[in-house]
């Protein structure tokens, strides 16, 4: 599935991944391929995504995620990494 991570200041990630884990407001959750449409708010925490041979973390300060048609769009308020 396709993952896009945006902050108001830049696009942090745009690419194919196999799974993503989010710090949801109601608790952490993971999204895999062909997930049902979902919108969730996020709290401060780490977004972890796994691609074919990479795995990376992005620290965000909160935001929203939308999952639709195998496209995951993360709108982060800000990021903590440099």
């Amino acid at each position, binding site marked *: 599935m396709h993952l896009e991570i945006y902050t108001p*200041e830049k696009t942090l990630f745009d690419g194919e991944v196999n799974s993503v884990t989010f710090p949801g407001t109601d608790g952490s959750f993971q999204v895999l391929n062909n997930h049902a449409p979902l919108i969730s708010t996020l709290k401060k925490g780490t977004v972890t995504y796994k691609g074919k041979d990479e795995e990376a973390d992005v620290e965000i300060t909160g935001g929203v995620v939308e999952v639709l048609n195998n496209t995951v769009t993360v709108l982060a308020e800000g990021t903590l990494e440099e």
Partner: protein
Amino acid sequence: MPNLKEVKSRIVSVISTQQITKAMKMVAAAKLRRAQDNIIQMRPYAQKLDGVLRNVTAGLDPEDGSKFNVEREVNRVLLIIVTSDRGLCGAFNSNINKATLALIEEKYAYIHKRGDLDILPLGKKGYDFFRKRKYKMVTDFWNVFSDLSFFEATKAADFAMKKFEEGEYDRVDIIYNEFKNVATQIVRKEPYLPIPPSDDDLGVESDYIFQPDKEKIVREIVPKSLKIQLYKSILESNAAEQGARMTAMDKATENAGELLKELRISYNRTRQAAITTEINEIVAGAQALG
């Protein structure tokens, strides 16, 4: 006939002015690129946020979950005006100041007379302008350009939202320069709060799973999109400022060049006249002797 030395010193001073304007133009060009990048980087975010917002609100009663679109009787007004910190950018700031005055005159004259109109300047020039004219102001945020970031911009947006919610202000408008291209800025006057109703109901309703629930999400996304809207205005204004400065400085450099050309002609003519007089004197002297 102008004095040779005077003309020479004027030439020197025009040259150094030209060097400054040229350097400023170059700096503005470099900053413009960065400012332009910032807007371009932000547009996808704003666009996606808008898309999500539309998906969420589709099928939802627009009154639900958001108190930012409630129209009230207008008793107190806040105007957010975005100018720059520095001058030397043509009519950039005076356009905004004039537009603000015109807007007050046209729509809020009565409210202003009653003392119920506040101005929230972002950028030093607008702050100075309205302070001199003794307008009522909210002065906590004018310094936003010294450290331009989403976080700083958010503070002003938070302030406006909080005051609107508390009923302190019934209307918030925003006035800024939009960046169209390097040479063109468009003065925009937009209603900020209450949120103007959107014209299109083309929201595509999907069967979303909402976490935690629809209303909470609306309550989170709406303020966010307001913050983004303000931040976007600030970025637009920032890019427009650099564009305006670049054109102004380009024009100034050009004018200095023309002035220089005239001065050089005048200098050469004076010099030639002095030489001719000198030769005449020598010839006359030789003839008198011969």
